[in-house]
């Protein structure tokens, strides 16, 4: 049987990918020794996928779990995926470059492909977009059954098709949407801005309202209205700034609020909003689209309020919480300039500062 290696047993790696890899024997690698030991001692785990208002269970009981790369035969795979979180890539063991199969980065950033090629000294690395919401946890009932259970949507995995992907491999992955580079960028625009932008803003508002899960935030009228405004600004911006098919963009935008509201997902606010500083990168899902909106002649008021909400995401357990919770110590201007490289006199900064004061 064909074998697949999943590097990173988090939400996407553990919760979603096994649904796409039913024709493979799966090995998981994760640096979290406690998690790996728990997965081994529990003989695997369960992933629950939502179909309408029902959940379907997949018991991953025959996979192998590793926290030590020395125990992995890197020559034994037909495909491998990396989903460890962009910030962790610099710590990725360089020996994964010895994998002799195609490797896909599912790290929400096209640049990670170039980084990984350099870091691992490996050429056949491509990009993938898992268009799916996968929680890092599960409902209380399912956690009682399995402490490592997760919930996921029935999503779609887009993988970049290039020279190293053969038909044999494609036949083993019938649900995958294989796309060329240009199409991948289109899918990426749609996911980064129409999906990821409002998704993280939902989490920031959810935190402000004391919610634990994204669907709880969406149940608050005020949050729902704000997110509708955000999606509308993003949609109009992409229509003006890109050549993407308007029907595709509208189709994608329309389903988003319903996805976030899915009560079966139990997607934690702490996961979706985590590392707000990374999300506030100059060309990223928040500031990048704000700038694009202004270039398109759209005044990004909802987006500015969403960014301001990010500046209040002071969840104690988050890696960025020390900086976020001390914004007032450094002043908002300094935060914008030192921490997210935004000129405090720019229009974006003025909108954000005004929203921050009023939030």
């Amino acid at each position, binding site marked *: 049987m064909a074998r697949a290696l999943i590097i990173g047993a988090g939400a996407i790696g553990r919760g979603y990918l096994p649904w796409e890899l039913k024709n493979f024997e799966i090995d998981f690698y994760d640096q979290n020794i406690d998690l790996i030991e728990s997965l081994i001692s529990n003989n695997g785990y369960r992933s629950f996928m939502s179909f309408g208002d029902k959940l379907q269970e997949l018991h991953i009981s025959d996979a192998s779990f590793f926290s030590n790369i020395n125990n992995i035969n890197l020559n034994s795979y037909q495909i491998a995926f990396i989903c460890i979180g962009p910030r962790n890539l610099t710590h990725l063991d360089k020996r994964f470059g010895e994998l002799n199969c195609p490797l896909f980065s599912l790290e929400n950033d096209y640049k990670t492909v170039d980084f990984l090629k350099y870091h691992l000294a490996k050429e056949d690395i491509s990009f993938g977009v898992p268009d799916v919401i996968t929680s890092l946890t599960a409902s209380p009932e399912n956690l009682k059954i399995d402490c490592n259970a997760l919930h996921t949507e029935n999503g779609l995995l887009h993988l970049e098709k290039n020279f190293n992907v053969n038909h044999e491999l494609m036949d083993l992955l019938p649900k995958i949407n294989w796309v060329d580079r240009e199409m991948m960028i289109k899918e990426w625009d749609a996911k980064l801005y129409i999906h990821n932008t409002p998704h993280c803003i939902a989490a920031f508002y959810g935190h402000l309202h004391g919610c634990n899960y994204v669907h709880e935030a969406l149940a608050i009228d005020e949050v729902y209205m704000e997110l509708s405004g955000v999606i509308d600004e993003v949609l109009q911006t992409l229509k003006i700034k890109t050549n993407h098919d308007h029907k595709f963009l509208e189709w994608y935008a329309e389903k988003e609020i319903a996805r976030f509201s899915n009560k079966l997902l139990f997607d934690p606010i702490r996961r979706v909003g985590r590392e707000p500083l990374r999300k506030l990168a100059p060309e990223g899902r928040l500031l990048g689209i704000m700038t694009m909106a202004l270039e398109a002649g759209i005044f990004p008021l909802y987006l500015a309020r969403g960014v301001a909400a990010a500046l209040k995401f002071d969840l104690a357990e988050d890696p960025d919480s020390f900086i976020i919770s001390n914004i007032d110590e*450094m002043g908002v201007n300094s935060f914008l300039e030192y921490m997210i490289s935004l000129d405090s006199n720019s229009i974006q900064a003025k909108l954000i500062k005004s929203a921050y004061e009023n939030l």
Partner: protein
Amino acid sequence: MKTYNIDQTLQLLSFKVMKIFDDCKHTQTIDHKENQYRDIVTNLDLIIDSELKNSLKKINPNIIYKSEESDFNLKDFNKIKKLLLVDPLDGSKNIETNLPFNQTMISYLEKGVVLNSAIINPNNRELLYYSKKLGTSSNKIVQKNNFTGPVYLAYGSTFSDNQFLTGIIEVINALSAGVYRWGSAGSGLMELYKGNLKGFVGKSIKIWDAISYIPIFEDLETFIYHKTYEDKLDLIISYDEEIFQELKKYFHDK
């Protein structure tokens, strides 16, 4: 009351400095009091010094505070168990002359060894942190290799051996793109860290002018020589072994 570890303490102090720089940018209240022709003290020096001293007292009162503007007696500094050594504003003269070369340097030392440092450069909005535990990190600094650029030369305001300085300049001129100076040793070290310079030479400079950077460059595995005496520091750093060895030999011979 909230407690902070030493990494957080230095981060928090750096935040306070960032705010002062931003406030002063908007209020333009910098005037200065001269105490020497070269060394001036601006109000900004004193404001930063006072903020850091008072904040440290609240955050972590067990750490002794010394700075260029407060308790600057560094005799036996390497015997102090926990010391925060600060240059509130390196390059004060550049404030007056409107040159974009000044910064704040904060170092935490245990018995003379730097375990943490925080450097705040308000001109390019750069932050550079060092932690013995976590290594070096910065907010947006991109490093590049430089083996062809100039060498920064710094010397203490009371150092008057012009013959020695002439000799150093000769060595630098022979093996690099020449001498650079812009009135702030810290700014020279920042540019060296970024790779815009080939090396740094400091003769008889004040310890707080450069000590924050020493572990950062040690981490980078550059060629580095340093010697402290009283409150002074001799320092040579370079990415290039040849010029480093020549400068070191010159220091030893003289």
